[in-house]
C-alpha cells in the first residue's frame, strides 16, 4: 500500500518535471519565433548610436505611432511642430494645452478619441515642413 503510494507520487513528480521541461522549451521556441517576427517586421532595430544625444533612430517615429496617451507637448517635440500649430489647426481652447493627453482632451470635450486622433494625424501630415 505504502509502496504503491510512493510509486504514484514518483510518477506524478516525473510527469510534472516533463510538463515543466516542455513548457520551458515551448516558451523558448515561442520567444525566439516572436523575436524573429518582430525583427523581420523592423520592430526590433537597435539604435547603436547610444552615446550621442539626441540619437538617430533607425526607424523614426511616424504618424501611425501616435497613440491617445500621448500629450500635445510630446507630439510638438517629437514631430518638431510649431508650439501653436495643433492648437490653431484643431481649434483647441483648453487652457491646459499642450500639457494634456489626447485622451484627456477628448474626454473633457466629449469628442471621440479616435476621431481626434485621426484629425491630429491629418494635421501633422499637412504641417508645412512635412509636405
Amino acid at each position: 500500500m505504502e509502496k504503491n503510494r510512493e510509486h504514484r507520487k514518483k510518477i506524478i513528480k516525473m510527469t510534472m518535471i516533463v510538463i515543466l521541461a516542455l513548457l520551458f522549451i515551448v516558451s523558448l521556441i515561442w520567444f525566439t519565433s516572436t523575436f524573429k517576427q518582430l525583427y523581420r517586421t523592423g520592430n526590433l532595430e537597435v539604435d547603436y548610436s547610444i552615446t550621442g544625444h539626441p540619437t538617430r533612430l533607425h526607424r523614426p517615429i511616424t504618424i501611425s505611432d501616435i497613440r491617445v496617451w500621448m500629450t500635445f507637448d510630446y507630439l510638438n517635440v517629437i514631430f518638431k511642430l510649431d508650439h501653436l500649430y495643433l492648437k490653431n489647426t484643431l481649434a483647441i481652447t483648453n487652457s491646459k494645452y499642450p500639457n494634456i493627453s489626447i485622451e484627456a482632451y477628448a474626454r473633457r470635450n466629449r469628442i471621440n478619441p479616435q476621431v481626434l486622433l485621426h484629425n491630429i494625424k491629418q494635421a501633422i501630415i499637412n504641417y508645412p515642413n512635412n509636405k
Partner: protein
Amino acid sequence: MDFLVQAIIPYILLYKYWALFIATFLASFALPIPAGTLLIASAAFASQGYFNIAIIFIVVLIANIAGDNSSYWFARLYGRRFLSRISFIQKILVLKDFILIEKGISRHPGFIIFISRFEVISTLTINLICGLGKASYKKFLFFEVLGSLANVIFYILIGYSFGDNWQAVNKLIGNFSILFFIIIALGISLFWKKILTKLKREIKN
C-alpha cells in the same frame, strides 16, 4: 500595452521626472505598478530627445533605493503589528514553512534580493520578508543597491536602444517574463518539500 501603463504614461509625459519618481517609489514600496515598463518607456522618450537619460537614471535609482528601504524598514518596525490585523495574513505569518523561509532568506539574502529587483511582485515580497525576518540591514542595503543598479541599467538600455520600438520589445519581455515566472513558480512548488528540508538542515547547522 496594458491598461495600467496606458493610464500612467500620460502623467509621466506631463509631470516628467516627478511622476517617474513617484511611480517608481510606489512600485518599490508597496504597489505592484509595472515600473520596468515605465522605465523602458521613459528611456525611449529620452532617446527621442524628450527626456534627459542621465536625469532619468539618477531619479529612478534614487526612487528605487528609497522605496525598497522604506518598505524594508516599514516591514521591520511595524510589519508584524500591521499585518497581524489582517486575519488571513496573520495565519500565513505563523505558518512553520513561512518562518522557515523567512529565516532562510535572512541568513542568505544576497542572490534572492538581487534577482528579485527585476520583477515588481517579487521585489515587494522579498522586501517584506527581509524586513519581517529582520535580515541584516547592511546586507540588504548592499544587495538591494546592486540589484537596483543592474535593474535600472537593464531597462534603460532596452528603452534607449530600441527607441520608438519600445512597445514591441516591452510586449515581448512582458509575455516572456510571465511564462518565466509561471515556470519558476511551478518548479518551486514541485520541489517545495526538498527546499524546506534543505532549509531546515541549514538552520540546524
